């Protein structure tokens, strides 16, 4: 095994520690972004559903502003968002370089994406069931938690997996602000220094992360389905 690695993956063998660090950085960025953007994105998705015309908390001006903001932020390429948000990042996390600095643009980028996905997932919930709950005298908050989020749970898990997977690919761009991670390793070392084996192994590790995310999601869905 060791000789195989030394022979075919010489650059990987020379510095295995860099892979450990890079994987750690990718996980750091993915997990923190998932947590923060997950909570805010869920809120955005719910707001998009309940404030729309005919929704539980119908509020046309609020809905239209939120809807537009989501569209605009989603339209900005992530690599540009990284640069665009530098000042904001400085204010929030106190630095503009490193994995921590990548968190702010990642969160900003993922929130509208996830929010839209959540919106779509919740709109799949049968409006008839919502109406039935209203007729039963369930409060509006009760309907959000007990009908929308409960009935939409499987779809929510599905879009969460989708979001995490696209998030992992976003973290690959974090190198632009010195965020590190597997993507950065593949580019700055593997590609720029013609150390192809590093690119290949970094890619495989990213794929592994994606597969694990998908696997966990599928397990949860299986447990929720009956």
């Amino acid at each position, binding site marked *: 095994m060791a000789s195989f690695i030394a022979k075919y993956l010489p650059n990987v063998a020379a510095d295995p520690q860099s892979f450990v660090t890079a994987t750690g950085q990718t996980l750091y960025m993915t997990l923190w972004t998932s947590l923060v953007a997950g909570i805010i994105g869920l809120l955005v998705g719910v707001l998009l559903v309940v404030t729309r015309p005919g929704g539980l908390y119908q509020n046309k001006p609020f809905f239209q502003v939120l809807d537009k903001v989501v569209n605009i932020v989603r339209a900005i390429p992530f690599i540009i968002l990284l640069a665009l948000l530098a000042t904001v990042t400085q204010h929030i996390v106190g630095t503009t370089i490193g994995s921590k600095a990548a968190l702010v643009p990642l969160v900003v980028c993922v929130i509208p994406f996830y929010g839209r996905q959540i919106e779509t997932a919740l709109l799949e919930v049968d409006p008839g*069931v919502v*109406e039935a*709950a*209203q*007729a039963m*005298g369930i*409060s509006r908050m009760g309907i959000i938690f007990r009908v929308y989020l409960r*009935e939409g749970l499987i779809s929510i898990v599905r879009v969460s997996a989708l979001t995490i997977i696209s998030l992992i690919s976003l973290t690959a761009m974090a190198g632009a602000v010195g965020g590190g991670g597997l993507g950065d390793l593949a580019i700055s070392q593997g590609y720029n220094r013609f150390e192809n084996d590093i690119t290949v192994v970094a890619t495989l590790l990213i794929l592994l992360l994606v597969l694990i995310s998908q696997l966990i999601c599928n397990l949860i869905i299986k447990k*929720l389905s009956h």
Partner: protein
Amino acid sequence: MMIDFKDVSVTFHDSGKEVRAVKDVNLTIEDQDIYGIVGYSGAGKSTLVRTINLLQKPTDGQVLVNGTDFTTLSEKELREHRRKIGMIFQHFNLLESLTIFDNVAFPLRHTGKSKREIKEKVNQLLELVGLGDKAKGYPSQLSGGQKQRVAIARALANDPQILLSDEATSALDPKTTLQILRLLKKLNKQLGLTIVLITHQMEAVKAVCNKVAVMEYGRVIEKGSAVQIFSEPQEKLTQEFIRVASHVDEALTTLRQSDHFHLGADEQLLQLTYNGTNTDQPLIASLFSNFGVIANILYGNVDLIQDVPLGNLIISLRGDEDKRQSSIDYLKKQGVHVIELSLANSSH
């Protein structure tokens, strides 16, 4: 008095266009009525019934439920009042992610009831609708009729006085429809439940309702007791609904398409409708003995509306023209509703 509609109108604004779904409806639904509201889709029935629990706010007029105008209530009070009005729907609207038990328990949770109370109540309700053994299953494992039973159990969870049924049997086959209707009738008798039954199927009304209102283009065009509506329908639409329900139209179509059925020059086709109070007279026989005309029964149907027999006959009458006319006058005098029918398709 239970539910009182006073000049109720509902107007929708759909992309600049004004749609008046309900127009000036006045209707009183009494305690323990099973009140049928009939009409084609788009007639405004569902909108009207939603003004009762304020799922739909009336644009004009007032709806009083036991004297309370729901629009004057706070959000919390409205929720409490809504709990006393059960509602069932065409597509059942069960929560697919919850078990049958949890679906029925759904309106009971977070209302301050203990787990044991909820469990007892839910099991009792499931027994009542005949699904005691299905508690652990999921809605997706049930047939349409069973789903509607679960929905009924759920609608009864908070011991309502009123049950709103919005096309609850329209997605079910005829046999299941009848079973669900019988269940509703049982609940009406057993629990003293007032039921508002929205439907486009006159058969459903015929089976259970004691009163009927017919809606067309947002208006109530005719209302009254079921016996009255079925025996003496005034409006064209009501007559149409009833003909479909009594299968007279179907029989007529069969006659028209038949190659073997012809009317002679001294023959005419009549539809006779009569109710129980005058069925003790041997009418058909007396036509021959009194007037010498021969009545031939081509189609017959007797329904029990609120335990009053209601008959529908298609007969051909043969004899001299003046004799036939005397016969018709005689029948009318006996309280029989007589409609002349034509074999030509264009007459309908």
